[in-house]
C-alpha cells in the first residue's frame, strides 16, 4: 500500500509545483526555466530548519514558507526585468546559479547549517523530519494526509487567483502586452506578481517533497527538474487549472503503465525518457495547447 501512497505523494507535490509554474507560463505567458530553483530552495530550507536547527516539523514548514516568500521576490525581479527570450535565458541562468550554490555550499567539515556548510554540498541532507511531526514517526498515511491537506489549501487559493479578475488580467497580458500597457495596466508588476506566486508554490512543493523523501541532494534544484515541471505542464495544458495536475499525475504514473506491459526495473528509467519524448511529440502534434485545451490555439486570426 505504501508504494501507492508514495506515487500519490509525488503526484500531489509535482502537481502543486506545475500548477504554480502554469501561472507564469500558461497564464501570463512567460516561459520560466527556474521552477526547480524554487523547489530546491524550499526543500533545502525545510531540511536545514528541521535537521540543523532541530525545529519541529510544523515550525520548519512555517520557517521554510518564510524563506519561500523571500526567495519569490528574486524570481519576481527577474520577471519584472526580462521578457520573452531574455526571460527564458535569464531564468535558466538563475536556476544553474542556485543549483551551483546548493552543490558548492559546503567546506566539508563545518557543522551543517552554518554559513560555511549551509547545504552539505553533494552529500545532501539525510534524516529530514517527516510531516506532520517527528514524534509520530514516518507513518505513510499521516504523511500523505498532511501533504494532501497543504496541497489542497494551496490549490483552492490558486484556483481563486486564476478565476479572479487578477487571473483574467494575467491572461490578457499574455494575449497582448502592448494593449494591456496602453490601457494602463502595470504589465511588468503583474508579471512579477505571477512569478512570485509561481515561485512560492514551487518552494512549498519542495518543502513537502523533502518531508516525503526524507533525503535531499542538489538534484532537487537541477535544470532537469525545471524541464520536468514544464513537461508536466505542457502535457496537461499550460493555461488551465486541472491541466498541470493531470499532467503531473500522468508523468508519475507513466512508468507504472509501462510496467503493465512487462517493462520494469532499470529498463523503465531509460524507457521513461524515450516515452516522455514520444508522448510530448504526439501531444504537441495533436493538441498544441495541451491535453485539456480544445485543440485550438488562442492567438491571431487571419483576415477574411
Amino acid at each position: 500500500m505504501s508504494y501507492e501512497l508514495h506515487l500519490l505523494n509525488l503526484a500531489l507535490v509535482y502537481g502543486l509545483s506545475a500548477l504554480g509554474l502554469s501561472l507564469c507560463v500558461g497564464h501570463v505567458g512567460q516561459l520560466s526555466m527556474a521552477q526547480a530553483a524554487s523547489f530546491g530552495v524550499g526543500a533545502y530550507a525545510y531540511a536545514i530548519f528541521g535537521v540543523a536547527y532541530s525545529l519541529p516539523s510544523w515550525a520548519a514548514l512555517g520557517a521554510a514558507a518564510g524563506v519561500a516568500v523571500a526567495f519569490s521576490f528574486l524570481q519576481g525581479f527577474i520577471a519584472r526585468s526580462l521578457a520573452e527570450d531574455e526571460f527564458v535565458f535569464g531564468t535558466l541562468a538563475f536556476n544553474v546559479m542556485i543549483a551551483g550554490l546548493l552543490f558548492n555550499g559546503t567546506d566539508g567539515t563545518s557543522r551543517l547549517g552554518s554559513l560555511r556548510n549551509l547545504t552539505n554540498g553533494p552529500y545532501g541532507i539525510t534524516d529530514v523530519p517527516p510531516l506532520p511531526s517527528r514524534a509520530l514517526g514516518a507513518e505513510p498515511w499521516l504523511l500523505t494526509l498532511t501533504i494532501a491537506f497543504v496541497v489542497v489549501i494551496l490549490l483552492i487559493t490558486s484556483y481563486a487567483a486564476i478565476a479572479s479578475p487578477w487571473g483574467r488580467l494575467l491572461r490578457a497580458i499574455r494575449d497582448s502586452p502592448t494593449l494591456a500597457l496602453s490601457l494602463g495596466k502595470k504589465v511588468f508588476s503583474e508579471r512579477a506578481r505571477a512569478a512570485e506566486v509561481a515561485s512560492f508554490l514551487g518552494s512549498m512543493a519542495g518543502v513537502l517533497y523533502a518531508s516525503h523523501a526524507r533525503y535531499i541532494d542538489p538534484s532537487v534544484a537541477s535544470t532537469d527538474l525545471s524541464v520536468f515541471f514544464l513537461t508536466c505542464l505542457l502535457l496537461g495544458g499550460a493555461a488551465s487549472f486541472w491541466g498541470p495536475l493531470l499532467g503531473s499525475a500522468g508523468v508519475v504514473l507513466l512508468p507504472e503503465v509501462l510496467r503493465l506491459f512487462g517493462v520494469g526495473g532499470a529498463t523503465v528509467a531509460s524507457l521513461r525518457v524515450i516515452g516522455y519524448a514520444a508522448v510530448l511529440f504526439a501531444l504537441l502534434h495533436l493538441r498544441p495547447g495541451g491535453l485539456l485545451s480544445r485543440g485550438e490555439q488562442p492567438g491571431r486570426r487571419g483576415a477574411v
Partner: protein
Amino acid sequence: MSSFLNGGCPPAVLRGLGLKKTFGSHVVFESLDIELRPGELVLLRGENGAGKTTLIDLLTGNQRADSGRLEILQEDGTTRVVDARRADPPTLARLGIVKCWQRPELFWSHSVRDNLRIASSGSEDSALRVLAQAVRFSKPGRVPATEEPDPYLAEFGLESLVERKVTALSFGQSRRVSLALSAIVGTRALLLDEPLASLDREGTKAVNQLLGQLVEEKKRAVLVVEHALNERLLAGFDYRVLELRSRRLERKEGGEPTSSGVGSPVDLWTGTLEGGTGLRRYGPVEPMGDGGFLLRFRSAPPEGSRPLLSLERLRVQRGAWELFSPQRGQGDGLSMAIHSGDVAVLLARNGWGKSSLAKVIAGDLPATAGQVLLNGQPTLDLPSWARRRQGLLYTETANALFGNLSVAETLRLKVGSESLDGLRLAPHREVRTLSGGERQRLALHCALNAADSRLLVLDEPFNGLDRETVARWLELFEAAALQGKAILICLPA
C-alpha cells in the same frame, strides 16, 4: 476654466511642448508644440514619413521623445506635467490618454465582455486584493457587481456581441470593440491611427457614429490620422486640420470640402480613378454576388484578345464558411475575366472574401472548386512561384518586405534596377526604419515596376498613403494599363 465660461476655447486637455524626436541622424521633429481641446476632432495630415504615427506615439508614451514635455489637464482642474523622455503608456493611460492601433488590437482569447471588463477594471484585478479575498474565504472568483460594464455596452452599441469571443467578430466589429476599449480608459484624449482603414460602408458608419458620440457627447479630445482617400469619410464632422510639414505643425482652417458626404462607393471610386488620369470606366458595373461589384477602367478600347486572368466558378473554404457559394447567393461560384489593359476594381464589404480571393489567385490559399486561368492556362495546381514566373504579382495589405534590406537593395531584388524614379525615398535607408505609408509606397513601386509582370493583384493599395502618392499611383496604373498590363484592385465598400 474662466475662458471656457466666457465662451472662448475650452482649455487644452493634452499639450505636447517642445517635442524633439530623432532616429539616428534622421530628425523627425525639432521642437514641436501641439494641443488638443475637449470635444474637438483633429485630423492630423502630412506626407508619408512626416511623423504622424511618431507624434501619436510620443503623445501616448509608446515612444519616448529626446526632449519635451506633456501637460495633461486633470478632472480636478490641475495640470499634470509628464517628461516626454520618460513617458510610458500605463502612466498616460491612467491620466486618460490612450492610443488606438490601425490593426485592431484585442485580448484574443477572451470574450467581448471580458475585454471590456479588463479595460474598465480599476483595482479589482490587483493581486493583493485577490489574496485578501482568498484569506477571508469571501467567495473568491466572483466578480463584484460594480465591475459590470453594461453602461459602456449601451453607449457603443455592442450589446448583441458581448457573449462572443473576439475571434468570432467581423473586422468592422473588432475595430469597434477596439475603439470601445480605448474610449473606456481614454477619458481625456484618444489618438487614433487610421480608424477607418479597411472598413466597408457599414463599418465606417458605425465607427463614425462612435466617433461622433465621443467628441460631441463625451467631450473627449480626438486626434485622427487617416489616409488621403479616407478623409472624405469624415465629411459629416466639424474638424480642425493640423498638417505636419517639414518638422513643424501648420494649422489649416477647416477641411477642404472634398466630395460632400459619403456617396455610393461606385461613384466614389469612379471619381477617384477618372479624376486626373485618362482612365475611363468601361462596360457596366458587374455584380459579383453577395453585394460585391467589379468596375473596369481602361484608357484604350479592348482589342478583343483572350483574357489575361479568368476565374471560373471559383469557391474557397475559409474557416467555417465556404466563400462564393450558393449559401452566399453567388450561384455556383465566382467567375470573372480581366483583359490586358484593364484596371479592375473589386468593391465588397468586409468578410466578402476579397483578401482570400487575392490569395487564391496568387497561390497562397487553395480553392475548393473551380479554376483560375492565367493566359488561358489552368494554374490552380501551380505553386505561387510558378505563377509569379507567368507574370502574376500580388501585393498584400501588410506587405512582405525585408526589414533589414535598404531601399536600394529591395529595388535591386524585386525590380532589377535601382532606379528611384518618383519614389521620394533615400536609397540607403533600411526598410524597417520606413514609416507605414513609405513601406506601402515601396511595395507598390516594386509591384508596378517589375519588368516581367503582366497582372498585378493589389489588396487595399491606398492604406497609409498621402495625397501626392495616391495621385502618382493613379498615373502609374494608367501607364501600366497602356503597356498592356492588367491590374485587379481589391477595396472595401
